[in-house]
């Protein structure tokens, strides 16, 4: 299974125009980055729109209606509004940290998309340490939140920042443990290999069936990482005004806001990749090609397959986002000590147990659990 290699064809195209392969490769480099930034931004904006529409529907309201068809222009209007708003920096704050904070959060989230594959070759870089990289980079975000909380010189902000740090650190561990179990089965940290290892039998070969406990742990931990209800303690508006965001406005606020939704999108994609078979269809697509007698290497088939793959991974990701949004509008918020209890006393031991069981099963049934 190769899939189309866009880079290869692009380089060949330019080489045909008389450029040296090195220049052609250099010209290729910014393209996927731009594309991914675009996709992530659109994904995050779509999530905000979905949030509004789904919350409205769950509350028997209409939600955005007149801004564009079905209010689709609302996220764009949001961005424009926040861009042209004045950014205020509180007089008693630490201006440097105050500005750097949101930037760090924003960049760290966007950086994680480096290793998120949308198809066999639709990834910026197939790093060997894929999942590890995502987990490592996402640990940077709490530093930004802490900076923001500290530099605002506001007790609510500080409390929010501290809560964010505590929460991120505690939930990083079950998150990593759950991912580790998946990695153990695929013998590889690379996101692409993890997906490929789930191919073959369609929906039956997805990791959800082999890692049900890990799946649940990962979902809970990822929700906590995204700071969404029921785990949105850092910005609990009834208690802490808006947590670390209290003093932010304009562009700086937009960075936080955008990062939080980009983070949700990232988490949804991670869930799709690690547990729901990434871009794999619920039925093995190769068999379909065989039945239809289409040669797997024909370019049209390749394009159709890649298109289906992108659709599938986005569908899975947005299914998770839908679930997260519905959950947000259904349940109350947990208390900080209960949150940490859940992280350390429930998810951590279960995560460890899950890892042990996975290892044992791997030794016992190498066929089913990736020997």
């Amino acid at each position, binding site marked *: 299974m190769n899939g189309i290699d866009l880079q290869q064809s692009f380089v060949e195209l330019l080489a045909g125009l008389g450029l040296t392969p090195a220049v052609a490769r250099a010209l290729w480099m910014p393209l996927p980055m731009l594309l991914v930034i675009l996709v992530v931004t659109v994904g995050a904006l779509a999530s905000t729109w979905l949030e509004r529409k789904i*919350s409205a529907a*769950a509350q028997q309201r209409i939600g955005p209606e007149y801004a564009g068809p079905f209010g689709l222009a609302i996220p764009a209007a949001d961005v424009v509004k926040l861009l042209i708003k004045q950014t205020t920096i509180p007089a008693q704050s630490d201006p440097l940290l105050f500005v750097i904070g949101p930037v760090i959060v924003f960049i760290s989230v966007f950086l994680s998309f480096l290793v998120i594959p949308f198809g066999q070759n639709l990834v910026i870089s197939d790093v060997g340490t894929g999942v590890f990289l995502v987990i490592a980079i996402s640990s940077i975000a709490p530093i930004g939140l802490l900076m923001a909380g500290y530099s605002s010189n506001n007790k609510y902000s500080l409390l929010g920042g501290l809560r964010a740090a505590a929460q991120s650190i505690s939930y990083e561990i079950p998150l990593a443990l759950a991912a580790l179990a998946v990695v153990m089965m695929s013998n590889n940290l690379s996101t692409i290999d993890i997906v490929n290892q789930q191919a073959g039998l369609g929906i039956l070969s997805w990791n959800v069936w082999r890692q049900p406990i890990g799946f649940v742990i990962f979902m809970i931990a990822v929700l906590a990482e995204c700071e969404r209800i029921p785990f949105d303690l850092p910005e609990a508006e009834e208690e802490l005004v808006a947590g670390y965001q209290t003093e932010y406005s304009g562009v700086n606020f937009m960075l936080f806001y955008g990062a939080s939704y980009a983070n949700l999108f990232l988490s949804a994609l991670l869930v799709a990749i690690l547990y729901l078979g990434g871009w794999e269809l619920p039925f093995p697509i190769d068999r379909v090609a065989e039945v239809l007698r289409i040669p797997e290497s024909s370019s049209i088939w390749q394009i159709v397959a890649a298109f289906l793959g992108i659709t599938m991974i986005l569908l899975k990701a947005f299914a998770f986002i839908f679930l997260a949004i519905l959950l947000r509008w259904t349940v109350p918020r947990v208390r900080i000590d209960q949150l940490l209890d859940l992280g350390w006393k429930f998810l951590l031991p279960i995560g460890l147990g899950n890892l042990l069981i996975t290892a044992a099963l791997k030794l016992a049934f190498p066929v089913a659990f990736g020997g």
Partner: protein
Amino acid sequence: MEKIAENRTIIQYLPYVTRWDYLATMFTEAITVNAPEKLADVPVPRRASYIRMIMLELSRIASHLLWLGTFIADIGAQTPFFYVFREREMIYDLFEAATGMRMMHNYFRIGGVAADLPYGWLDKCEDYCHYQLEKVDEYEKLITNNPIFRKRVEGVGKITREEAINWGLSGPMLRASGVKWDLRKVDHYELYDELDWELQWATEGDCLARYFVRVREMRESCKMVLQAIKQIPGGSYENLEAQRVLGGPKSEWNSIDYQFISKKPSPTFKVPNGEHYVRVEAPKGELGVYLIGENSVFPWRWKIRPPGFINLQVLPQLVRGMKIADIMAILGSVDIIMGEVDR
């Protein structure tokens, strides 16, 4: 508010009182007319009393609904807030049809109510009560057993029976601590004795118990309104009118029992000599007025005992040693309205 009362006639003062507790407006009006009514021994027709009870219980449901929404929103779930507003809107639609305003009704009068119910009103009220009973079940499905909700409120903000009595708490705060005390049962005012209803109470004394008491009270109030609709003398307004026409000028349907007001109070209604304390069971607790009259159009003293103010006193000792997040849950479960706390 108390000083304003001292230089207004009761008629002039009535529009003000809905601003005390602007979520249970009917109760403030009820106490404002009950106080001079009892002092001057003004009779209240049975029909008027039934209309009052229906209005009071609807108002209680509205108040508890809003409490439920804000309480859950304080804990972090926003959605029930919209659900309760959907139902509360219906109560206010009913109020608007009967009284002319959604919140500031100015509907109760000394000796009855301002006007009879409009035609078709009782039918829709019945519709509403059945609808509301269904919806309460839905809220319970959404909230009651939610593990996060349970963890946030169970055992939080505990008040023992003795503490509750010593702090002078009233209403659901008191009943949730295991005291069977409801002024509707204790004082026998209006015609609550003619309805078949049960006092709702719990013994735990924590936020969850208060939640249960209020939710059950909502159900109970719905049932009381349904009974009152069946038992109201003369039935619906349209029926009463028809019977009056059929019965002619001397029919029994013109007797005092079937009037909505005994006698329209004159603008110079005098508060007679004497002093007394009158109270009603408002959704938040005991709402009372201590009235001193000196046979003039203005009351000499008009002391208000608002339930929210007195229930709020217990907050500092409840939150001692708790987490910040618990303050929200406890304050939410106390159910205060700043309009009557700082009146």
